[in-house]
């Protein structure tokens, strides 16, 4: 997030797109409700009628994968009415003219044809966002998990800059991270192209800095992303995979394809707190300590690095992940003899400029938000205050593109996937929790009453869902949350796994798969 969670409640307008906030980030949704109580306008755009829509001043259900057209359409209306912030654009941004030329093509009638959003609704969305300042834009995987994920994010940024909402309190472009330490894993260099704090591996000075810190010559070629790794496994180039606290068999976009890739490995190492669907396939499984059994830090979606404290001893012989990695490293001939997480954290702060001012003592109970460059620095509540990280904010001219797969005669329905409120990710943690399991015991497919009628399906009937990748059987849930022609499957449940169906087509830059859109056929099971 460019801004902070607490700031949301002082926004004059909140625009939520591609985030089912009440289900997936309930304590962020709370801030939206508090903002509403203080008089903020709420605009919601989601292909489903999510719970938040009921509280919105305007809520629309755009056609799946049409977000660029929707956002361009809003910006077209804003510019036409002169609601944009010309002083901000002049002073703080560049490439506005090229961007404006592209936007000229997105008149409301064209946008309605692509998105299905009535012109009057689009006008109202544009007016509410542009004329109530500051406006906070919130998004989640509904924006990113597309073959046009990067285009979608850039369009969100264009909109926020157009109205002068970046670098101001209670404004901003705010991705809501799905997992507890996505932010931290990225900050720490858990990516194939960068060291900690996003320092590119291919830049010689960075490479030298880390080689010196770690006492070892380091590779400067950019490595494989997870998407590339699976192809490299199929091609026989990747022979060993070390999986820490992840369950790709359930989270990869094409389970059948991943299965073939795993079969080709010489060595699969899994490190987890449970025997996941992936770990069942492993050659070695390391038993890891859980969140309550170790010290360390997590960094949340608003860049707040916070201390996690050991409450109990690990179960059985389980060890903390840092201890296991240290032992393996030492056995490989590179000594790692850390006394504990605090010593590792101190090393992190010496090579990670955005964390340089943090210590365990300073983190206290509240944590600190990066950038925190020195030990006097109070942390940073919102980014890009006087200038953008790159200097001037860059407008991008973005054209709408269809998703990789659209419904046709053979696969006539749209399918989208996501979470439901009681479960988390691949279900490894939440499905063994009695009070969460009882809320939802197995998967389901949401289907509109009209479509259910056509198929003679009643609530609870088992249906077959099939795509070009595979087929599952799942109970039907007749629901007005989806529109006719749209189906929704949660991805937490191995017995009717959404990722047997989803499309592994991915964004060319971010390499994120298109979990949110594919074409599917449905029939009542015999």
């Amino acid at each position, binding site marked *: 997030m460019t801004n902070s969670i607490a700031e949301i409640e002082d926004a004059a307008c909140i625009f939520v797109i591609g985030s089912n906030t009440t289900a997936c980030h309930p304590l962020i949704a709370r801030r939206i409700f508090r903002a509403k109580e203080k008089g903020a306008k709420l605009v919601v755009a989601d292909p489903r009628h999510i719970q938040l829509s009921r509280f919105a001043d305007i809520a629309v259900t755009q056609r799946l994968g049409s977000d660029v057209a929707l956002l361009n359409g809003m910006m077209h209306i804003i510019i036409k009415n002169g609601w944009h912030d010309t002083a901000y654009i002049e002073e703080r941004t560049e490439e506005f003219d090229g961007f404006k030329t592209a936007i000229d093509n997105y008149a409301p009638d064209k946008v309605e044809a692509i998105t299905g959003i009535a012109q009057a609704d689009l006008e109202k969305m544009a007016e509410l966002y542009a004329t109530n300042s500051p406006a906070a834009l919130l998004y989640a995987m509904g924006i990113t998990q597309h073959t046009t994920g990067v285009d979608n994010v850039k369009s969100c940024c264009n909109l926020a800059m157009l109205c002068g909402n970046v670098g101001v309190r209670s404004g901003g472009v705010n991705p809501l991270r799905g997992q507890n330490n996505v932010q931290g894993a990225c900050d*720490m260099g858990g990516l194939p192209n960068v060291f900690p704090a996003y320092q590119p591996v291919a830049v010689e000075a960075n490479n030298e800095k880390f080689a010196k810190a*770690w006492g070892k010559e380091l590779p400067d070629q950019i490595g494989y992303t*997870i998407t590339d790794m699976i192809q490299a496994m199929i091609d026989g180039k*990747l022979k060993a995979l070390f999986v820490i*606290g992840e369950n790709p068999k359930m989270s990869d976009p094409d389970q059948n394809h991943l299965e073939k890739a795993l079969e080709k490995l010489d060595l699969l190492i899994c490190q987890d707190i449970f025997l996941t669907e992936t770990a069942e396939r492993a050659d070695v499984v390391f038993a890891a300590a859980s969140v309550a059994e170790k010290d360390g830090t*997590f960094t949340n979606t608003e860049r707040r690095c916070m201390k996690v404290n050991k409450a109990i001893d690990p179960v059985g*012989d389980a060890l903390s992940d840092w201890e296991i990695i240290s032992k393996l490293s030492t056995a490989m001939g590179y000594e790692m003899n850390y006394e504990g997480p605090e010593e590792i954290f101190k090393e992190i702060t010496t090579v990670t400029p955005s964390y340089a001012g943090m210590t365990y003592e300073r983190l206290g109970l509240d944590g600190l938000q990066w950038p925190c460059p020195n030990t006097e620095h109070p942390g940073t509540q919102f980014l890009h205050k006087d200038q953008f990280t790159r200097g001037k904010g860059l407008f991008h001219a973005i054209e709408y593109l269809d998703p990789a797969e659209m419904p046709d005669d053979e696969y006539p329905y749209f399918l989208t996937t996501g979470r439901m409120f009681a479960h988390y990710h691949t279900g490894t943690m939440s499905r063994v929790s009695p009070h969460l399991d009882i809320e939802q015991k197995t998967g389901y497919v949401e289907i509109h009453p009209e479509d259910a009628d056509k198929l003679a399906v009643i609530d609870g009937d088992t249906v077959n869902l099939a795509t070009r990748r595979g087929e599952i059987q799942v109970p039907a849930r007749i629901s007005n949350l989806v529109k006719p022609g749209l189906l929704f499957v949660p991805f937490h449940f191995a017995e009717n796994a959404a990722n047997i169906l989803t499309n592994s087509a991915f964004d060319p830059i971010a390499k994120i798969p298109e979990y949110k859109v594919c074409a599917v056929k449905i029939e009542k099971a015999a």
Partner: protein
Amino acid sequence: MDYKMIPSVCSYCGTGCGVLFQVMDGKLTGTMPMKTHPVNEGKLCIKGWNLHEHVVSDKRLQTPLLKKDGQLQEATWDQAIQTTAGKLKAIIKDHGPDSVGVLASAKITNEENYLAQKFARAVIGTNNVDHCARL
């Protein structure tokens, strides 16, 4: 009776709510919201209130496992670590460091992610390191 409340952070999503783990005589018995925390101000969602339940699940892995005769069997740490190190070294020797991939995790701590990428880069010698942020 020894009762403690240990401050920590919920690991169920990216919001990062402050929690207090309730520990009675060395056993984890509950999760409470932290009243003073800047993110959640004394509130939690259904997952947060039940955070301790997955920790005390009887399905937790308790020991390392090694595959023998096609079956995963309990092993000691020394066996598991030495066997893995031996196999990894052989694969690196035969196919080079870029034949190994490491998936760090959006679930583990910063310290552990830092070590995971350091392990990939400095120990294995590859930038084939990524994690499940996109998923």
